[in-house]
């Protein structure tokens, strides 16, 4: 079953691009990553899903309900943590959280105190006295206090220290184990890599790849770095499967995908001083998608 279904969603702000033809589904119970650099359209997609901005065209459904007409019903079971959190400055943290809880038809008091304990949040401070990181903690508690079935996180870790990030990820994993679906938008690959089952990569408003983390890595890319004594001719490695080729003095580095025997034979013909072959991390694959452009 799909918790989120997005079909050909397009948003233009006047003439400037927001997102173009974005389509993907998030299945029940999965942690879905949404990766792309700043300005690629992650927040636009999420805000359109939440009904904060109106799409130019396309459809979107959450829990099978239309995001643009049934927002009120959908939001009962959605927890949202925006990338930048803003609250009413004059309020105390606890009053803000109670105000937030008052919109859901259930008693959230116990959960508020639980979450505040986990996130080490002082409930009696005023919002305006909080640092950016502490505001983010309020955001986390606010997003989870009504025990939502879908959690939407937009750049959740910015401003949190590493310890808090870890606690936060633990919390998200626990929720996920209870069956909660998570949409995690981020430009930090390592956190997506740690948490997600599948990812969509967005670039300049368009989805360029939807893949499981395993497959992304398992596409058998190798990062090969060799050092030689002599200059190699520039087109020596100009064969199929070689990407991201860089030369630094006599150090040659590239990504290779294809028949290992071919590249080994090529390498065997050279007089090599040093060689490293390793699996690239997601970061490298990701950069590769980004630099490759349209044909990716």
């Amino acid at each position, binding site marked *: 079953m799909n918790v989120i279904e997005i079909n050909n969603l397009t948003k233009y*702000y006047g003439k400037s691009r927001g997102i173009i033809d974005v389509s993907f589904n998030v299945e029940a119970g999965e942690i879905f990553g949404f990766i792309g650099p700043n300005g690629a359209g992650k927040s636009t997609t999420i*805000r359109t899903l*939440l*009904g*904060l*901005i*109106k799409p130019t065209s396309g459809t979107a459904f959450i829990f099978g309900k239309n995001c643009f007409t049934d*927002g*009120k*019903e*959908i*939001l*009962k079971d*959605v927890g*949202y943590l*925006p990338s*930048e*959190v*803003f*609250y*009413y*400055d*004059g309020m105390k943290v606890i009053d803000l959280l109670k*105000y*937030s809880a*008052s*919109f*859901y038809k259930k008693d959230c008091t116990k959960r508020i105190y639980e979450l505040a304990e986990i996130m080490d949040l002082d409930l009696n401070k005023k919002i305006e006295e909080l640092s950016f990181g502490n505001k983010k903690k309020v955001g986390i508690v*606010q997003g989870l206090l009504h025990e939502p079935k879908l959690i939407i996180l937009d750049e959740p870790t910015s401003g949190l220290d590493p310890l808090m990030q870890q606690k936060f990820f633990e919390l998200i994993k626990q929720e996920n184990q209870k069956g909660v679906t998570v949409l995690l938008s981020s430009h930090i690959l390592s956190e997506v890599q740690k948490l997600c089952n599948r990812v969509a990569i967005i670039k300049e408003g368009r989805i360029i790849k939807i893949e499981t983390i395993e497959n992304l890595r398992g596409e058998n890319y190798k990062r090969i770095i060799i050092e030689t004594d002599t200059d190699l001719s520039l087109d020596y490695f100009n064969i199929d499967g070689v990407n991201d080729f860089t030369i630094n003095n006599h150090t040659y580095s590239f990504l290779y995908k294809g028949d290992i025997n071919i590249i080994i034979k090529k390498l065997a013909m050279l007089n090599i001083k040093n060689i490293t072959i390793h699996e690239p991390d997601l970061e490298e694959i990701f950069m590769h998608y980004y630099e490759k452009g349209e044909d990716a």
Partner: protein
Amino acid sequence: MNIFLHELKSYRKSLLIWSLCLILLIWMGIIEFLSSKGSNSLSELYNNLPPSLKALMGGGDFNVETAIGYYSVLFIYIELIVVIHAALLGVGIISKEEKDKTIEFLLTRPLSRNSVLISKTLATFVLILILNIVILLASIIIFNTNSDESIISELMKLMVGMLFLQILFGSFGLFIASLRKQAKSSGSIVLGIVLGMFIMSILADLHKSLHFLRHLTPFRYFDAKTLLLESGFKLIYIFICIILTTAFLLLSHYFYNKRDLSL
């Protein structure tokens, strides 16, 4: 309901300040009234004013030696202030969420935009009504007790008229803020229009050829001259007021539901 209470709470201080300023204005009025009373100088001065200056004071042939006559001149400025309050309140209650970027929080609660707007509209009207009652009570206490004749019924009339204007301009503020994404400049636009209307209401008395203006500016619909010296409430003006208010409120829902929020 929770938004409604939240708004009332967050506007407590601001309402208190507006109330105190208006009470101070009324109190200064009575001091001036009492000090010049009996010396004839005030009514002489008023009656000898050139018509253009008289227009600035409401243009009516008030007997400023009576409490109600004096109050009627003061009332023009009380009314201007409460109308500014109502209009800015209407704009602010919507646009502050976008200016302070709290709108993303509010509208990701399970709420329709309509219900947000209705709660905020109700809060606006209640705050407006409270200010109106505060002025009525302050005027009764300050003016009525210092006057030989009772002016309560006249004051009531003026306050009812003022309430119509407050609601009208409050709705106008709500409408402008619902229409526009640019939260920061909406306040200035509304303030500009309120002052424009006020100036029109003065110009209307300056020259015969400008008399038609009095039908265009709501400030002349329920002024002291009409309510106390002339025929009292005019049905046509009440009608226009209600039509405009309803239109502003309906349009504010239409636009607020349709537009992107500025995030």
